[in-house]
């Protein structure tokens, strides 16, 4: 006998497409739509494949910092939390790793500092949430405020240039490997590692469990508190890496770096199908979300759109994007079900 009489039968052989995959196809659809608009508005450029390639690489480069952050954010959100402090942590780590003192230790020293500061600050978020039982929103909001203040204190609100001695950091934003900008490769690397961590390790499985059904996770003997700390530490780590990217892009650390990155990252993750309520989300979706947002910005600037129209149209596009994507999903759902 069976309990699955009505269960959607799986065509032998081929596995059914999972919801997320459908969603992500929808996102790709959106990206194509954006390109199409570009081709219509600036055929001179978008139809010049050489230019197109360079422009897309540019978009990816501009996306790299937020992209890395969003990977961390995706973990946090799947785990049922939220991290508002990412932007501020980028500022703090960028400043910390560009102080005169730090820079003496060379590029490696700077990277090390950024990562360590990020992880520590992130863990602090985690501790406040897991052991202080603060709502993630509030805990990370407090961190946001404090980290910005600390960044301003350290930098004296001055822009801290990377000094020429630190070749590696300075060159990072110029280097290409096989024609792909190093920064883009960093984002991709983080993305791939994130994907593996999320989908192939116990850590990932448990992240889903904690976000999806904390009680069940607890009854399954998962150490929720420790896991939460790790999640926010991971997000902090990503902020550290992102800070390096921002520093090398702007050749400086500054207390106003990463302004409102939290909003961009969260929005990208949600567009990418991550649930604010936790338990659902994909790395690929989040990264696609980031690229979509950066693609829109690029589209506007390439068309020299005045800021106010940029904003109005952007609002419309966001709505359109989600609708396109939903249409895609639901249509596919209809096809697979019934």
């Amino acid at each position, binding site marked *: 006998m069976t309990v699955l009489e009505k269960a959607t039968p799986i065509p032998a052989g081929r596995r059914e497409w999972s919801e997320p995959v459908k969603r992500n196809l929808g996102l790709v659809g959106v990206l194509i739509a954006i390109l199409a608009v570009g081709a219509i508005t600036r055929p001179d450029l978008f139809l010049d494949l050489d230019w197109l390639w360079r422009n897309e690489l540019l978009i990816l480069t501009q996306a790299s910092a937020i992209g890395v952050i969003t990977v961390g954010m995706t973990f946090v959100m799947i785990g049922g939390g939220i991290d508002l402090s990412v932007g501020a942590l980028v500022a703090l780590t960028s400043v910390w790793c560009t102080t005169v003192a730090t820079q003496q230790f060379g590029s490696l020293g700077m990277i090390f500092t950024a990562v360590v500061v990020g992880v520590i600050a992130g863990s602090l978020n985690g501790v406040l949430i897991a052991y202080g039982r603060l709502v993630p929103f509030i805990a990370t909001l407090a961190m946001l405020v404090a980290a910005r203040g600390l960044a301003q204190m350290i930098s004296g609100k001055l822009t801290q240039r990377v000094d020429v001695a630190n070749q590696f950091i300075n060159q990072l934003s110029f280097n290409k490997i096989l024609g792909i900008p190093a920064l883009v490769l960093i984002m991709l690397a983080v993305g791939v590692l994130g994907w593996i961590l999320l989908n192939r390790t116990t850590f990932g499985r448990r992240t889903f469990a904690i976000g999806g059904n904390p009680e069940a996770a607890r009854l399954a003997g998962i150490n929720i508190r420790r896991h939460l700390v790790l999640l926010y530490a991971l997000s902090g780590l990503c902020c550290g890496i992102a800070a390096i990217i921002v520093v090398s892009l702007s050749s400086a650390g500054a207390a106003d770096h990463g302004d409102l990155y939290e909003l961009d990252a969260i929005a990208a993750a949600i567009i990418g199908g991550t649930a604010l309520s936790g338990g659902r989300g994909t790395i690929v979706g989040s990264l696609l979300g980031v690229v979509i947002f950066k693609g829109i910005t690029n589209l506007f*600037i390439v068309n020299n759109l005045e800021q106010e129209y940029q904003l109005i149209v952007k609002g419309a596009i966001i709505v359109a994007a989600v609708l396109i994507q939903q249409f895609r999903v639901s249509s596919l759902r209809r096809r697979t079900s019934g």
Partner: protein
Amino acid sequence: TSNEKKGDSGSGSQTVNNSQGDNTAPGKAVKIGFSAPAADHGWIAAITANATAQAGKYSEVTFVPVAAGKDVTEQRPAVESLISQKPDVIVMLPHDGAQMTSTGRKAMDAGIPVVNLDREFSDPLAYRLLIKGDNYGMGVAAGHYIGQKLKGKTNPVIAEIPGIDELQLTQDRSKGFRDALALYGLKVGPRIAARFTVASGQEVTANLLSGNPHIDAVWNHDDDQGVGVLQAMQQAGRKEFFMVGGAGSLDAMQHIKAGDTPLEATVTYSPTMASSAINLARLIAQGRKMSELAELQVPKLIILQSETITKDNVDQYMPLGFRS
């Protein structure tokens, strides 16, 4: 920029050493209240730093700064609490001239002369002295420099990278720029606003360059974001154009001097006005005159000229360059 400076003993702020006249001689003790927006970027930071440093030069001046928070609704109560402390004079750089007018008026009505710094009140009765930079003039200066160099060229591409676009001062600068270019029969091409921050400067410029394969000239409103703007130009490996900056940061001047970037000139909008404001506030409070003027009182309106710094005169401006 901060790092290079750590070596030398410089205070990082620019003060006025007015050797002339007897105004240097200490007068009666005065209390100068000061309110400027929370420093979130170089120029504002320099304003506060300069004011503080300048006040420090006078033994008889007690300097009372009040934090002005993040917007008008926070600056208002701050200044009002200041008024209640009855200083002899108040120097105020408002978040927004129009929106702080009524507060300025309050102080004046309370018999406290107000030195309105840079962002102009919409009511002349709200200040005793208005000392401001010339945003429109700044745009004009930039326009003239670019116009001079490009006149005769058939429709060249002139890009403009303003700061925060919602600000009145940004609008004034852009208008001046347009008007001046018009004199040479030139028009502004691509115009994309950044946010006064290095990162925004980099991102906006990177995209702008991608969207405009050929550019002849760029005016960037603000040398703070200029750091990012120049970086983006380098990353794109583009140098077919020249660039004019704005404000006159030390960093910008060094680049102009070195000539290692497209940055050829910058039009000043100097935070030194804060130093002057403190000086004049002191004179007003002490009822003294400006030695060079016949009049017995400090005048009511001072608009600083926006100067154009190029390779030729950069050395003489270097000391005024503020660290962003």
